[in-house]
């Protein structure tokens, strides 16, 4: 199946163009835009890990190594599309337009972090595995019913393909021809379990065959391959062609979460030998003469400032409001819940 589903790439590991049919599309503007998003989310990611180590953030799920997959896919979306992320896809949601302060707040245990930025359809991250896939299918199906051209994208990892909800979502997507992109980031590990123990199939893309659904396997560390593949799938969905499964083969450099020690299950030194998606893009940009040191340095320092400012805002955010413990359980609180709330607050002099 690896031959039926070859890994599509536009850049090789060294940043050389392998698919020359795309050369004209690899402009400086596009390169710089993708680089900017990738650098921005990496800056966020590294800061979040630091904050967690200092006790200033809760347990955090880093995505370093997966920036090309997340940026390439999210950058291809339109503002009115729907995004159904997991807990490791805040790189994608930030690229799509999620608020950075709220993203930090989420990792600090604040429910405000689940609330999507106004006007954007971003679902709170799914913590159970694969459950967001049918949600995306339903939201996409709703768009189709309304006769719109908007689509939904579900993000999920390799481990998720073992869950029933992945298969049930795939089946619904194909039966109802929902305009949905099932965007898989195959980063090789579900916490500690390598993909060889997760599935007997050679690829994830081949699973779409069983559902009569188009699919493609791509180099998820090649941001151009991700972006143009996503664009093609989006065009198909918007024009009534139904769902697509994309398997973006990538690699998580770090831990599953800050509570995990990856050296227990793999050689982290060798893990770091993988080609960094950002360095690959930089190599391409240098080769093309798109890489202006001063311009890049300005972008980097702008992101440092943005992230520092977001941290400051997150840390000076008003303290959690105990009313929020109760108030959003129902549109109108049942009497019993009102009583529980009143009793609790009254006993504490509120």
């Amino acid at each position, binding site marked *: 199946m690896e031959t039926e589903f070859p890994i599509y790439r536009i850049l090789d590991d060294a940043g050389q163009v392998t698919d020359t049919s795309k050369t004209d599309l690899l402009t400086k503007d596009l390169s710089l835009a993708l680089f900017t998003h990738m650098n921005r989310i990496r800056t966020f990611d590294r800061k979040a890990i630091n904050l967690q180590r200092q006790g200033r953030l809760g347990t955090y799920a880093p995505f370093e190594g997966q920036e090309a997959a997340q940026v390439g896919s999210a950058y291809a979306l339109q503002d009115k599309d*729907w995004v159904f992320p997991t807990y490791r896809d805040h790189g994608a949601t930030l690229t799509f337009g999620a608020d950075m302060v709220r993203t930090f707040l989420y990792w600090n245990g604040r*429910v*405000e972090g*689940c*609330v*999507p930025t106004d006007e954007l*359809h971003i*679902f*709170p991250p*799914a*913590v*159970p595995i694969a*459950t967001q*896939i*049918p*949600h*995306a*299918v*339903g*939201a*996409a*199906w*709703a*768009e189709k*019913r*309304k006769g719109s051209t908007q689509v*939904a994208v579900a993000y999920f990892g390799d481990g998720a393909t073992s869950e*029933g*909800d992945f298969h*049930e*979502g795939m*089946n*619904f997507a194909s*039966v109802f021809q929902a305009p949905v992109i099932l965007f898989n980031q195959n980063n090789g590990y579900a916490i500690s379990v390598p993909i060889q123990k997760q599935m007997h199939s050679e690829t994830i893309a081949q699973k779409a065959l069983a559902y009569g659904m188009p699919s493609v396997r791509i180099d998820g560390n090649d941001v151009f391959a991700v972006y143009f593949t996503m664009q093609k799938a989006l065009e198909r969905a918007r024009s009534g062609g139904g769902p697509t499964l994309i398997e973006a083969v990538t690699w998580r450099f770090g831990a599953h979460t800050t509570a995990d020690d990856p050296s227990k299950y793999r050689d982290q030194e060798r893990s770091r030998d993988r080609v960094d998606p950002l360095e690959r893009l930089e190599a391409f940009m240098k080769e093309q003469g798109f890489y202006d040191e001063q311009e890049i340095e300005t972008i980097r320092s702008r992101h440092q400032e943005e992230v520092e400012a977001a941290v400051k805002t997150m840390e000076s955010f008003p303290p959690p409001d105990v009313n*929020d413990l109760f108030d*959003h*359980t*129902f*549109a109108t609180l*049942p*009497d*019993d*819940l009102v009583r529980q709330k009143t009793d609790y607050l009254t006993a504490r002099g509120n």
Partner: protein
Amino acid sequence: MATPINRQTEMTLVQAVTDALRTKLTDDETTLVLGEDVGKNGGVFRATDGLQEEFGEDRIIDTPLSEAGIVGTSIGLAVNGFKPIVEIQFLGFIYPAYEQIMTHVSRIRMRTMGRYGVPMVIRAPYGAGIRAPEIHSDSTEALFTSMPGLKVVCPSTPYDAKGLLIAAIEDPDPVLFLESMRSYRAFKEPVPSEAYTVEIGKAKCVTEGQDVTLIAWGAMVQVAQKAATEAATRGVSCEVIDLRTLYPLDRETIAASVQKTGRAVIIHEAQAMGGLGNDLLALINDTSFLYLRAPVARVTGFDVPVPLFALEDHYIPTPTRVLEAIQRTVDF
């Protein structure tokens, strides 16, 4: 032509369910019916009979056999402008969807601080007593009444079934709507032709009495009423409360009745351990402890899986077992 006023039709509970669905499908074009066999076949209990012919395949949707898929997909539809009315064929088949209901349906409003609600109704026939095959007879309502963010409704009469189902469909929050299979065609009663609602969260005193309060829902209301009739011949006056909504509980109605009678018997088909009866006991303890003249009795299923039907008559509470419990509380 003037609309006829107070037109009523004699209906069974299952016909009242169909009537409520038809009413809302007509007046709210965002409503969709999704489930296994709900279209051409009209549902295994015929609750959606004729609806696909009337409203089309686009709104009365035969789905793949996939409970988590149905509920999960309906979440996406619900947050994006539609009101899915899901049929799960039997409550005993809902468990694959339990994760979706527990981790998403019931929590999305809270997690998004109200930005997204999930206006979804999940209908599920439940309960034993109709000689159904294995797993078709579960009464696991307490798995759902203990789930914050979800309302649970269980009518025992055709009139309440229509009014509560319309209220459930109009509710901005998710509602699990339990339909007693044993009550589906047990009796007919006049049901108004027009749209009306029965308020969610309100119990109903169906028989007034002085000595003992009987609390029941679904098929157990009739069992309680039979026991009350028999008790009356022995000079014991029972008040029968049909709970109608299992979450949120109607604290006032229960407390007022128990404070009047000083005795209570709770009747449910579900197992005793972890059953809703225990929450009712707690409610009575919290509101009416000093009014009690006897310990509150429970008549429930046993702490065993609902048996294959050859033994179900031993499992389901009967008027005789309820009478024995009434007598115990009176004799205490």
